[in-house]
């Protein structure tokens, strides 16, 4: 009897070990057999594509969209996709950001989407967004955004320190990097150090990267463009002279400059004159953060508001150098069982005139999306103002922004029109798959040099070593 009991117990233990696995496989089997809706799995790094996915579901009620958001702060998203694709467990559709889209375009993980090209021609999709996603003549992804760069400054501060807030005159004052530095000096002196030109050094690094003559990698070798040298010098000058607020980009102090709530350690209020952000920076970054914020008062349940509403006090110009920054591409993963569906989604997101118009004009409000899927919560929505990839759509809707929220934010300036002028001139021929790794490796040495903690030789050596560490197959001299 005892024997029997212990044998049974051992058997139960083993069974419970494998029970988890068998249950799961049974479930998936059921799914494919019955007539449940088709599932489209999408991975992205923000909630933007989720908005699109909900809208897509509204058009195709028979399809169930499974959306997964993974943040990319320190590169988690890229790593997660790579390991999932390597293991053959990727989703059907992935979103790719400008800084790493090339790695995936150059790999063999994405489906050929070249047959959608005629649609792109009809919509006059900006050529650079297609070039970016083309490798060996095959187009593997499409973007719904074009992202020309812009320069946003505070009108009230401009009037105070330069005597005018007229965009054309300010453009002359900050027209190139020399003038930009000079203007920073004027602001510092006239404000007695209480107003900074920019919030962080990180704000203008993109300008220098975008204006290089050569790509980072030529014939498998690391090339350090003279622009990098210039960047080092400007960064040092800004840090040493106190022209920047020493904030961390995308961190609290950096955002605090947008609603005038920046306070230094001694309790003195500080202001930030300008932010260097591209098209998407206006609706997604600057506008949501330029309103007063509620914070908890220490030691009680009450809240107090800090900062003030700076809407209407901003203006938008080209700034010291032309550039572009960011952008989201969508692609179908190779080997997906839902290829047709995935293609349909890419088509809807990037190559559908109606969707692009809805996207740019802010049709996808929270109520609109909730009608399709009530479970999305109260936050998901798409405000107007994102700059889309179709020249045809842009030309049709640009004048509609004369009275939009974005234009009110810029005191009547229609930024959409100026972006429309800048977009056709963008070239992305310098972009390579390794850019992200190389530019991230430059961060720490750049800060060391700017803070005076390393000579330029030491900083460059640190940079080269970091690149060698991140990219073992690259030749670094």
């Amino acid at each position, binding site marked *: 009897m005892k024997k029997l009991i*212990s*044998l049974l117990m*051992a058997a139960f*233990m*083993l069974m419970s*070990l494998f029970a988890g696995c068998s249950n799961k496989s049974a479930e998936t089997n059921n799914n494919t057999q019955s007539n449940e809706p088709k599932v489209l799995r999408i991975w992205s790094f923000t909630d933007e594509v989720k908005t699109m996915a909900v809208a897509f579901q509204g058009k195709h009620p028979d399809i169930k969209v499974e959306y997964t958001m993974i943040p990319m*702060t*320190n*590169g988690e998203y*890229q*790593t997660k996709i*790579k*390991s999932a*694709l*390597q293991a053959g467990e990727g989703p059907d559709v992935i979103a790719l950001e400008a800084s*790493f889209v090339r*790695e995936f375009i*150059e*790999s*063999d*993980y994405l489906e050929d989407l070249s047959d959608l090209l005629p649609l792109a021609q009809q919509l006059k999709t900006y050529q650079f967004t297609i070039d970016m996603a083309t490798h060996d003549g095959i187009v593997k992804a499409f973007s719904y955004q074009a992202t020309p760069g812009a320069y946003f400054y505070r009108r009230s501060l401009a009037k105070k320190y330069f005597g005018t807030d007229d965009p054309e005159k300010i453009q002359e004052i900050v027209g190139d990097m020399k003038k930009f530095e000079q203007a920073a000096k004027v602001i510092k002196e006239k404000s007695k150090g209480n107003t900074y030109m920019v919030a962080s050094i990180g704000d203008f690094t993109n300008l220098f990267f975008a204006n290089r003559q050569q790509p980072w990698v030529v014939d498998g070798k690391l090339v350090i463009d003279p622009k990098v040298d210039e960047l080092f010098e400007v960064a040092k000058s800004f840090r040493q002279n106190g022209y920047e607020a*020493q*904030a*961390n980009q995308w*961190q*609290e*102090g950096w955002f*605090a400059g947008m609603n005038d709530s*920046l*306070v*230094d*350690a*001694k*309790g003195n209020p500080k202001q930030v004159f300008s932010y260097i952000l591209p098209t998407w920076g206006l609706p997604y970054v600057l506008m949501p953060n330029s309103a007063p914020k509620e914070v908890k008062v220490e030691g009680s349940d009450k809240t107090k508001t800090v900062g003030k509403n700076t809407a209407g006090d901003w203006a938008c110009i080209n700034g010291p150098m032309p550039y572009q920054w960011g952008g989201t591409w969508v692609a179908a993963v190779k080997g997906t069982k839902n290829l047709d569906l995935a293609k349909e989604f890419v088509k809807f997101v990037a190559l559908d005139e109606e969707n692009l118009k809805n996207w740019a004009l802010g049709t996808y409000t929270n109520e609109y999306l909730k009608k399709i899927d009530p479970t999305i919560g109260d936050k998901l929505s798409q405000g107007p103002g994102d700059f889309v990839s179709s020249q045809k759509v842009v030309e049709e809707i640009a004048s509609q922004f004369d009275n939009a929220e974005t234009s009110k934010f810029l005191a009547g300036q229609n930024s959409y029109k100026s972006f429309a002028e800048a977009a056709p001139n963008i070239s992305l021929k310098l972009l390579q*798959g*390794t850019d*992200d*790794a190389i530019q*991230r*490796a430059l*961060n*720490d040495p750049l*800060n*060391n040099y700017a*803070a005076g*903690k390393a000579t330029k030789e030491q900083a460059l050596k*640190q940079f080269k*070593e*970091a690149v*060698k*560490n*991140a*990219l*073992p*197959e690259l030749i670094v001299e």
Partner: protein
Amino acid sequence: MANTKINKNYYGYIFTAPFIIGFLLFSLYPLVYTFYLSFTNMTMMSKAYKLIGFENFKKLFDDRFFIQSLLNTWKIWLLNFIPQIGIAMLLAVWFTSTRLKIKFVGFWRTIFYLPNILMPATIAVLFFNFFSFYGPVNQAAVRLGIINDAIEYFRHSGWTVSIVAFIQWWMWFGSTLIILMAGMTSISPSFYESAMVDGANSWQMFRKITLPLLRPVLVYVLVTSLVGGMQMFDIPYMLTDGRGSPNGSIMTMNILMYMKFSSSKGHIGAAASVGVMIFIVTCLSALLIVKLLSEKDSKNNAKAVKGEVKGYELHN
């Protein structure tokens, strides 16, 4: 009847089978496979790869990062382990002392253990905000007149290392405390009672009774902490930019491994070679600790017991 005794051994195998199977599948196989991978140039972005011998290891020792990350890992571990075991020991002695009779021991123990159950990611973000340039630490310190100007903590190697070591200490001393207390309460109180009768003071009791009898527990704490310390990853990874900034001062071996793995192409082979090195370093140091401490352990134990017995005999 004699046969049943032999037959029963059979059940031992059945009951240990789940563990053995799990170990072979999820521990031994990955370990062997990691060794294999470290000799390949496999990446995540392409399916083809080939064996390249010791190339990965050669590259690893060629650039300064591996040695630096090795030193960093040891430095951060020692900086947090020494105060960790010191303070845990002190508190454990207080809490188990029959003389002091501290109240609410369970409550304090829980409080000290709490940081351990928080998510490392949350803690890292919390401390990053505390010590950021516009954060509360700078605000308070400047306004109280402790420092003149705000400090950029995360651009100074020394500060960043200290903060990581502090977090590790804060998170782990509670768990060490519990293990040490368990060890101390298992020591028979009669030793202390007879020592008290002899007029021994607290320090003498600690040195002559607690410490020698606690040695096996100390070996356990030291080895588990070493293994954990060599694998340090989440706090230093989340605290700054995931690359051990500034100056690679908090780049641990595991961060280096993850950096290779998450670099643009995802170099699995190069990452595996770091993993192999971590394995070797951890094994060697753990073996060394066990060997050094257990030898002393058996000798001292014998001595201590002998001494006690002698003392006991004399009194009678």
